[in-house]
């Protein structure tokens, strides 16, 4: 049984959304998605999933606030604490079980109203590591980046090239608030925040609410004609945050496992040939290269291909034509959904200034960010 995305809606994509609360943003995104899909949430939708984490919300049981803004009151509404793409995976399973026909996935982020964002990040570290009082909770990303560079032979220039490519590309995307005209020199000459990553190579934060409506093949035809199919979606956790000593530094096995799972479901053997572009994790510049490698989109010489412009929008295999998270920003648990949204708009031909020509199938890959080693990958197609 195939599963389709029949509607998407979003609100925000700005560093600060002062005019609405997170609940109002959820409502705005939901209304737009239901209008896009042509569904009545009170009649047509069988279940609602919200992707959120308590500490981001500042509420001890955040699921309490999930149902009302998305039309899920007195209906099956649940919270999965994971990246939005993991929730899409849950919705995919629910539809494939045959019991649920239409499932809504919602994720939202309002980092602008989190006063103690750094401390929240610190609380996600293992309590033993927390006692070391490491000044920047993103240190794991720096360690991984350095290990990746040593293993692959990629230099700081390659990492900076990713930042330049994505930040510049984002200027064409109205949803990319963190885009900027930067040059390689500017990136390389700025001081690393966490070595080797400079501030241009670490994505900023963005407020957003995103809503995606999924439906099984047999009912999808009732809802509009802008379907994008989820050919496969899978996720994996390498190790828990309490066991980062087991992590394979400089690699992202969770991404590889998630990709293999998604490829298997989608029947993909050669992703470079069988897909047209990818929206992949790039909240840190090195993650784009590492993710491409783990996804099998260029072997272990991805930085050489990057050099040659292979991953540019007009290149052999466009990667992050939206500008990626470096341009759009990290949207907490909505990060995976924001990338899925960009891929869906591309496939529908609604991507505006960043639209690619003749694209039919795409890979979306998302990581939950430090200090986790959890990733999710989806393969989406137009037909």
């Amino acid at each position: 049984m195939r599963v389709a995305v029949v509607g998407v809606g979003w609100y925000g994509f700005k560093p600060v959304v002062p005019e609405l609360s997170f609940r109002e943003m959820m409502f705005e995104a939901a209304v737009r998605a239901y209008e896009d899909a042509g569904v009545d949430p009170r009649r047509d939708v069988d279940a609602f999933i919200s992707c959120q984490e308590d500490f981001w919300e500042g509420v001890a049981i955040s699921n309490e606030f999930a149902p009302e803004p998305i039309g899920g009151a007195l209906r099956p509404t649940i919270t999965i604490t994971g990246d939005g793409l993991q929730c899409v995976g849950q919705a995919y399973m629910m539809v494939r079980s045959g019991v649920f026909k239409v499932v809504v996935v919602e994720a939202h982020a309002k980092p602008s109203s989190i006063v103690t964002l750094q401390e929240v990040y610190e609380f996600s570290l293992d309590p033993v590591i927390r006692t070391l009082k490491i000044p920047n909770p993103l240190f794991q990303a720096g360690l991984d980046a350095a290990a990746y560079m040593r293993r692959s032979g990629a230099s700081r220039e390659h990492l900076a090239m990713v930042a330049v490519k994505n930040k510049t590309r984002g200027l064409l995307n109205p949803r990319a608030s963190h885009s900027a005209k930067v040059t390689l020199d500017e990136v390389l000459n700025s001081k690393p925040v966490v070595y080797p990553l400079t501030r241009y190579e670490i994505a900023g934060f963005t407020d957003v609410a995103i809503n995606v409506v999924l439906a099984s093949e047999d009912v999808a035809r009732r809802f509009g004609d802008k379907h994008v199919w989820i050919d496969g979606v899978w996720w994996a956790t390498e190790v828990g945050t309490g066991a980062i000593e087991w992590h394979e530094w400089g690699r992202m096995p969770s991404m590889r496992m998630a990709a293999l799972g998604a490829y298997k479901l989608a029947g993909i053997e050669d992703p470079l040939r069988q897909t047209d572009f990818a929206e992949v994790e790039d909240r840190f510049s090195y993650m784009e290269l590492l993710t491409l490698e783990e996804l099998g989109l260029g072997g272990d010489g991805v930085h050489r291909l990057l050099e040659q412009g292979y991953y540019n929008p007009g290149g052999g295999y466009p990667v992050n034509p939206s500008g990626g998270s470096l341009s759009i920003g990290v949207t907490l648990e909505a990060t995976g959904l924001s990338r899925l949204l960009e891929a869906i708009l591309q496939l529908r031909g609604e991507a505006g200034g960043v639209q690619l020509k003749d694209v039919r199938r795409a890979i979306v890959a998302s990581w939950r960010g430090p200090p986790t080693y959890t990733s999710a990958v989806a393969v989406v197609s137009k037909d």
Partner: protein
Amino acid sequence: MKPNIFVKDKVAIVGAGLTLFRRRLLETPRELAWEAAREALNSAGLTLKDIDCIVVGSAPDAFDGIHMKGEYLADGSGGFNKPVVRVFVGGGTGVMVPVVAWWHVASGLCKTVLAVGEEKMSHAYPHPQGVFAYIWDPILERPLGPNLIWIFALEMRRYMHVCNASKEDIALVSVKNKRNALDHPAAQAAANITVDDVLKSDVLVWPVQLLDISPVSDGAAALVLASESVARRVTDTPVWVEGIGITTDNTHWFNRDLAYPRYLEYAARMAYKMAGIERPWKEIDVAEPYDPFDYKELHHIEGLMLARRCEAPKLLREGYFDRSGELPTTPSGGLLGVGNPIAAAGVMKVTELFWQLRYEAGARQVKKPVHKAVANAWGDLMQVGTVIVLST
């Protein structure tokens, strides 16, 4: 929602495990999760290598003081190089864990799932109730400084008023469950008490008294779920998951009639429809209604349609819900007797039904023959109902 004739793969529970439920256990949350997970794997005769997917359940992150608690618990729950998700619907998480595990298997995408519920409440300082100061609407309710027991006192009072139930009637639940728990090896709050003891215990928020309420606990519980083909291979007595139900009501608990859990009835109807159960009060043989407070068991018995509205107190007096009764409820001892590590407590209820349906509950085994069973959990701001129906 369609009945389960469309379900691709039948789903069975093939193993269950439990840690001790205690206050201030010395194990870390990860160790607790693994202890339960290992016991569940052992009881199914499987190892971690045989498990395809992991579902973790745990209630507020603030109890452990760890952000992204699901990620922290992942490897303790067996999630090492595996797909892991954590589900969190407040107190309803416990039963939600096997429900989420159910669709992992029913979708045909996982053959075996390890479903773990873990909670460590006791290291919240000075008291885990402090965590509940942050569950309220930040604008309307938090400035009032409400406490979770307050709103449950309102609900209990409303139930007593509408159903004309007395404190004595309700105390009987506590007496029954704490006595049932005497036979449970993991129990934390088992006791042989009388109605008088309950009525003489400290008043917390009238009408809720100390013995009306479940304790603060640490613990973990785990289940192994498998597709039909795997289940037939690893066990002669699989317990089938016949129905699942979920309903979340709106946030505004103060706008609802608290005398009846409508959200639970909706969830139960969904589960019964899937299971093909039309008259639950006749067809269900044993039940584990969620009982963090003694009145909640009666409330949930009615919400699960195992008794007519306001009829539960009368049936309880008659011994209808005893282990030797017509429809035994909470034969494990429940949250009142065994303990209430939130997410683990809900999973514990399902482990109990698993053992009851396999006639492995030992001294806790109910008198009557059992084929169909139901468990529920309840959470958030008195708004979540999660239901699972099992059968042999």
